[in-house]
C-alpha cells in the first residue's frame, strides 16, 4: 500500500459483542473507510475471563457484531482487524472467534483470507525471559518470581500494531488477534499506510472505546482520519457529535497518566496536543508525539483463587439499624463460632459480612452522625479452598445469619432472606498476578501467526 495522505478507520464499537448498529456500518462505508478496527478485550471486568480463557460476551452477541462487520466488508473489500479476541486474548479466544468468523463466511458464501495472531505465552517461555533479565515489574509490582508464573492459568503478552500490519500486507482481509493494546489495533492500518506515528497512536487511544469520546457515548461508534501531522475524529451517527472537550477528556479515561501512554515500542506523549472543532461534530487533533523506545510487551496473567458461597438478608429492624457497627462485630464473631463448630477447628476459611446501605462498598466505619438507613442488605461471603468447604461454612451459619438477635433475652428475629435454598455457590474467585513487561528483540518474537481458510477448516502450523 502507498501513503494516500489520509487513512480512515471506522471503530463502530468499543467492545466486540456489545452491539454494533447497522446504521453505523452504513455511515462507515459512505465515509470511505480504509479499515474496520474493533477491540474485543479488556481486563476491566476482572480476572475471571483470563483465568478461564472464556469470553465475557455470548457467542450470539459476538456473532451478530461480526456478521455486520463482515457484510460491510464484502461490499467495501477493506481489512477488518479484531484485537484481544474472546475478551482476554488467549489462544482459545482467538480460536473461538475464528470459528464464528468461518461460520459467518460460509453463510455469506465468501472466502476471506483470515490471519490469526496468537500472543498467549507458556509459563516456560516467561520464566526463560525472566531468567535472562528481560522481564521488568511495573509499579507497584515486585520483580517476577517463578512462583508468580506458576500460579497463572493463562499468560498473554500485549501485541503492538506490527503483527497486524504484517498480516494486512500479506493479504489478510480479516485479522483476528490475541491480546493487543486497544490503541494498536486501531493504529495499525494508519501506520502501515504512512500516517504520522503521534497522530496514529493518539487517534487509536481516542477511538479505543468507540463512542466514549463523543458527547453521547450511547450513540454509536466513531471514525478517525489520520494524516502525517494530525487526525480528526467524528461520530458515525449523524445525531451525535465530538467536541474538543469530549475528545480531550478521553485521555483521562482509565489512564493513570493523562499525558504519557506506554505502548509497545514507544511512548505516546500528548502533552502538546491541541484539540479544535472543525465543524459541529468533528474535532481535529494536532501536536501529539510518539517517542520510540526499546520494544516491550506488557504481560497479563490470572490465577485461580479460592471458592466462595454467599447468602443475603435484608434488615429493617430499627434496633439493629441503630447499632449497626457493634452488631456486625458481634454477629461476625458468632458466625465464626458456628462455622468452626460445623467444619472443625482446623479448617481454613474466611467469613465477610458486607452491609449494603451502610458501608458495604467501603467496609469502613461511617463517620459519627451519619444518618441511619431505612434498611440494610447484608451479604455473607464464605471463602475457602473448596466449594464444598465454603458451602459447609455457609450451611453451618444458616441459623445464626438469619436469626441472630440484636440483644439477649428477646425472641429470635427472622431477617428477610429472599432465596430457598439460602446459600448460593458462586464458584471461584480469581486474581490478576502479573504487572510486568517483557523486552523483545522484535515485535513478532512472541507472536505466532496462522491462516484460517474458510474452505478448509484446519489451520496452518503455529496454532
Amino acid at each position, binding site marked *: 500500500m502507498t501513503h494516500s495522505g489520509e487513512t480512515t478507520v471506522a471503530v463502530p464499537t468499543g467492545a466486540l459483542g456489545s452491539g454494533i448498529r447497522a446504521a453505523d456500518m452504513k455511515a462507515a462505508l459512505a465515509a470511505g473507510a480504509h479499515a474496520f478496527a474493533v477491540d474485543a478485550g479488556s*481486563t476491566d471486568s476482572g480476572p475471571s475471563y483470563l483465568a478461564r480463557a472464556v469470553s465475557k460476551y455470548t457467542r450470539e452477541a459476538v456473532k451478530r457484531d461480526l456478521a455486520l462487520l463482515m457484510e460491510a466488508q464484502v461490499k467495501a473489500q477493506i481489512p477488518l482487524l479484531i484485537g484481544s479476541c474472546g475478551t482476554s486474548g488467549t489462544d482459545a479466544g482467538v480460536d473461538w472467534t475464528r470459528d464464528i468468523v468461518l461460520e459467518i463466511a460460509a453463510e455469506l458464501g465468501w472466502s476471506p483470507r483470515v490471519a490469526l495472531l496468537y500472543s498467549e505465552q507458556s509459563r516456560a517461555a516467561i520464566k526463560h525471559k525472566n531468567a535472562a533479565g528481560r522481564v521488568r515489574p511495573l509499579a507497584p509490582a515486585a520483580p517476577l518470581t517463578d512462583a508468580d508464573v506458576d500460579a497463572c492459568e493463562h499468560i498473554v503478552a500485549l501485541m503492538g500494531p506490527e503483527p497486524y500490519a504484517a498480516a494486512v500486507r500479506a493479504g489478510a482481509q480479516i485479522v483476528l488477534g490475541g491480546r493487543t493494546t486497544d490503541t494498536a489495533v486501531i493504529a495499525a492500518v494508519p501506520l502501515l499506510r504512512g500516517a504520522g506515528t503521534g497522530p496514529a497512536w493518539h487517534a487509536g487511544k481516542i477511538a479505543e472505546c468507540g463512542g466514549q469520546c463523543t458527547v453521547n457515548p450511547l450513540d454509536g461508534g466513531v471514525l478517525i482520519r489520520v494524516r502525517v501531522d494530525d487526525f480528526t475524529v467524528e461520530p458515525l451517527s449523524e445525531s451525535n457529535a465530538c467536541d474538543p472537550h469530549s475528545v480531550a*477528556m478521553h485521555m483521562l479515561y482509565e489512564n493513570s*497518566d*493523562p499525558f504519557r501512554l506506554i505502548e509497545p515500542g514507544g511512548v505516546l506523549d500528548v502533552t502538546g496536543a491541541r484539540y479544535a472543532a472543525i465543524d459541529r461534530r468533528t474535532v481535529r487533533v494536532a501536536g501529539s508525539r510518539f517517542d520510540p523506545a526499546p520494544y516491550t510487551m506488557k504481560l497479563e496473567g490470572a490465577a485461580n483463587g479460592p471458592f466462595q458461597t454467599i447468602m443475603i438478608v435484608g434488615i429493617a429492624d430499627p434496633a439493629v439499624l441503630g447499632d449497626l457497627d457493634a452488631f456486625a462485630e458481634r454477629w461476625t464473631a458468632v458466625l465464626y463460632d458456628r462455622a468452626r463448630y460445623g467444619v472443625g477447628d482446623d479448617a481454613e476459611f474466611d467469613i465477610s459480612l*458486607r452491609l449494603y446501605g451502610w458501608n458495604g462498598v467501603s*467496609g469502613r466505619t461511617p463517620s459519627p452522625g451519619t444518618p441511619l438507613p431505612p434498611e440494610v442488605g447484608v451479604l455473607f461471603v464464605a471463602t475457602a479452598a473448596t466449594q464444598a468447604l465454603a458451602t459447609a461454612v455457609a450451611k453451618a451459619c444458616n441459623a445464626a445469619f438469619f436469626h441472630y438477635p440484636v440483644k439477649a433475652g428477646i425472641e429470635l428475629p427472622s431477617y428477610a432472606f429472599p432465596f430457598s435454598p439460602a446459600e448460593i455457590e458462586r464458584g471461584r474467585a480469581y*486474581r*490478576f498476578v502479573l504487572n510486568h513487561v517483557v523486552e523483545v528483540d522484535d515485535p513478532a518474537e512472541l507472536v505466532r501467526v496462522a491462516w484460517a481458510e474458510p474452505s478448509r477448516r484446519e489451520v496452518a502450523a503455529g496454532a
Partner: protein
Amino acid sequence: MPKLRDVATHVRSKNAGPFWVTVDVFFADDRTYRTYRDDPALGAATFARMFGTDAAQVKRFPLDALNVVKISYPRPHPQGGAVERDMHAGQQAHYLLDLELGSPI
C-alpha cells in the same frame, strides 16, 4: 472551610488497569481550579489514609487546559480478588466529597 463537594463540579473514579485507580476532580472554571489545584487535602497522605494505598506511589497531575486535577493510586489489592468490593473502583471518588479544602499550602 469548603468541602470538595462544594467546589468541584464533578468527581469520578475508575480502574486504570487491574492495579491502579484514577480519580478525576473537575472544577467549573479556571479561577476555582487554580485555587484548589495544589490543595494539600488532595495529596498523597489523604489517599493513603482513606484507601490504604502507599503514599509514595500516589501520582497527581494538574490538567490546566481542562480545569481537572487527576490523582492516581495503586490499589491495596489487585482488581477482582476474593476481597473485592468495587470491581471498577467507580464508587471510590464519592468518599472524597467531604474532604475539607482550603488549608494553607
